[in-house]
């Protein structure tokens, strides 16, 4: 197997494609850098000049509002030029191949590609293809990875819990289809969380998931008992009625996070969700709007984390 394609020959970050295999020091460096950007949002002029003259291309082959917007804000706060391309609705439907698209954009001297794609691994293909001056950030590929989400989740956990090395974290719901879950699992195991759990019905957990270093629970109460962090996953509506799940109601009954269930976790447990939330499907409104939910903080921290990733890749 070849060298980890996201590190350069000096072991520094060339692309951010996945959290898996990244050294702990790199993760900590990103989180520390993000912390230094938190107060930029509170200034009158919400900008730092670190990426002036650099161009960031947001390449979204799959629709997204939240992630694309936060990457755009992050790049603009770093003073970069941002170009948004929703390829789902343009060239690809005209038959242009993925690599043709990348060649065209490379010819426009892009410094940074932020890529969202429905196929697992697409950002790897792009990273192999772009010149050595360009950087690729994976903004979500298929079921594989969503590294900036995993980092912002880690940032949120560190913000509220300080230390990873004593934490019990439960990740609940559709792990099978979730890049968010995979990235969070890799982040937590790298950062030293001793007890990472996945909770869900057998139909929504991938084969051999315990190989990722997690404990598997099929019972929600047991799975979240005494946890410090509960990370809920979004269950896509189209997966609700079919061979994987019978109905929203039944899923909510077995795996939905209600105030009663939340009481089984530690009293100071926090509740995370990558959004957009399905109220009454995976999470009760009383929990989503309750004092233990940190869902909106995740969004705010997400901008700082993405600023950190972009600026580190840009060598600043």
């Amino acid at each position: 197997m070849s060298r980890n394609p996201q590190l350069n020959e000096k072991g520094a970050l060339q692309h951010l494609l996945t959290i898996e295999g990244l050294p702990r020091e790199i993760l900590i460096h990103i989180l520390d850098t993000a912390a230094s950007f938190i107060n930029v949002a509170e200034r009158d002029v919400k900008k730092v000049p670190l990426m002036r003259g650099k161009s960031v291309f947001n390449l979204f082959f799959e629709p997204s509002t939240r992630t694309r917007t936060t990457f755009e804000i992050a790049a603009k706060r770093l003073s970069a030029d941002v170009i948004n391309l929703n390829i789902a609705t343009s060239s690809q439907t005209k038959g242009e191949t993925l690599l043709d698209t990348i060649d065209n954009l490379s010819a426009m001297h892009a410094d940074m590609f932020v890529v969202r794609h429905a196929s697992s691994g697409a950002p790897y293909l792009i990273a192999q293809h772009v010149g050595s001056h360009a950087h690729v950030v994976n903004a979500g590929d298929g079921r594989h990875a969503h590294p900036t989400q995993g980092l912002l989740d880690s940032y949120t956990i560190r913000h509220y819990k300080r230390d990873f090395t004593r934490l019990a974290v439960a990740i609940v719901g559709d792990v099978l289809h979730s890049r968010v879950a995979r990235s969070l699992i890799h982040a937590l195991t790298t950062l030293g969380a001793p007890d990472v759990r996945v909770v869900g019905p057998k139909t929504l957990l991938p084969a051999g998931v315990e190989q990722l270093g997690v404990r598997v629970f099929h019972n929600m109460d047991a799975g979240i008992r005494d946890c410090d962090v509960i990370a809920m996953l979004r269950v896509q509506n189209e997966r609700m009625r079919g061979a994987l799940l019978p109905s929203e109601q039944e899923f909510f009954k077995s795996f939905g996070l209600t105030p009663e269930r939340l009481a089984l976790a530690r009293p100071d447990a926090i509740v995370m969700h990558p959004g957009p939330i399905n109220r009454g499907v995976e999470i009760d409104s009383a929990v989503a709007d309750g004092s233990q939910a940190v869902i909106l903080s995740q969004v705010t921290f997400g901008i700082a984390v993405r600023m950190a990733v972009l600026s580190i890749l840009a060598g600043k």
Partner: protein
Amino acid sequence: MNIHIKGCRLIDPKSGTDAREDLFLAAGVVAAWGRAPKRFRADRTIDAKGLVVCPGLVDMSVRLREPGYEYRATLESEMQAAVAGGVTSLACPPDTDPPLDEPALVEMLKSRAKSLNLARVYPLGALSAKLKGKRLAEMAELAEAGCVAFSQADVPIVDTEVLWRAMQYASTYGFPVWLRPQDSFLAQGGVAHDGDVATRLGLPAIPSVAETASLATMLQLARSAGARLHVCRLSTAEAVAMVRRAKQEGQEVTCDVAVHHVHLCEVDIGYFDSHCHLVPPLRSQRDRDALRAGLADGTIDAICSDHAPLDEDVKHMPFGESEPGATAVELLLSLTLKWATEAGVPLVSALGAVTSTPASIMRVDAGTIGVGATADLCVFDPEAHVRITPASLCSQGKNTPFVGYEVPGQICYTLVAGQVVYENAA
């Protein structure tokens, strides 16, 4: 033309021979071993000191891409690749466009192939019309046109009644049925084995049970229909055990494995290497070990290349969107030798899996160099190692996960009917 092959190590798996014997060819057949027949005068003498002479390889699955996919490969390019790989007889699956479900298509393919004077082509007819799994193909007509067996290539028949009836119909005429076990529902949308690697990489998965559930159905249907079943491309340990059991119970069943699956497993996907996107998917190390054990104990009868030349564009895509398949007909000998060396299997039995055994499953006159047999031969240097590079391949498809491998076995000569059709000067 009379040819004297001098000083060689002669390996004939059918008779279990592995001996230092000269070989004398005359009038397209093997005239004698050891001593020249009376009044034999060689037109050509091949000095084969240190070389092995064995029957030309018989490959049970080579896609020639004609008709319909000439942009991927042509009969010329792939037949050249075959003889460069020492393959002198090959079966081609019916997944062309249109599929091989009409006698005229089969006749055309056979006559085009024949005119090239390279390897012998034995088409597999479509088991169902257009491979659609609804209506039976005209098997008797297709057999008359030259089909040696009937197959669905990689397109499963979903309707079990059609499958059962197709087997019954084929067995009416004694035609063998070749099927790859895969349940289309369980495999739907999947691109990799349902194991640790697919879980880590987030690749939609194909569980082992997609193969075993289908295989169980196939074995039962074939038993009930009295059909001669050949199971193509086993990939799981459980399937090997099932075939072993069926054979022990006396069922007339044979099976093969693709040469990739003898060497590679899911881990080789690495960082989304689309050259490892194959059908069936590369499975776990445990599965690969079971396939190797199955080969060694004879449960798996044959190794084939499952040759599938593709253009680079369809591999330069995200893993799940790329087309599955690999070019391999030229690597069959080397990769078989590599397995034999690693597994400690004697050359004479290892070569049986790519010569005499597939020939007997296909029921064709090939796979042996006994005296009187057609002189289809492969002459190779077992000690020489070759490095696989795209440029080293004759096939138009350069898509192989084995690029960069150093493998044993350099083909020096390939002969068909006593004529040298490939010669490597180096």
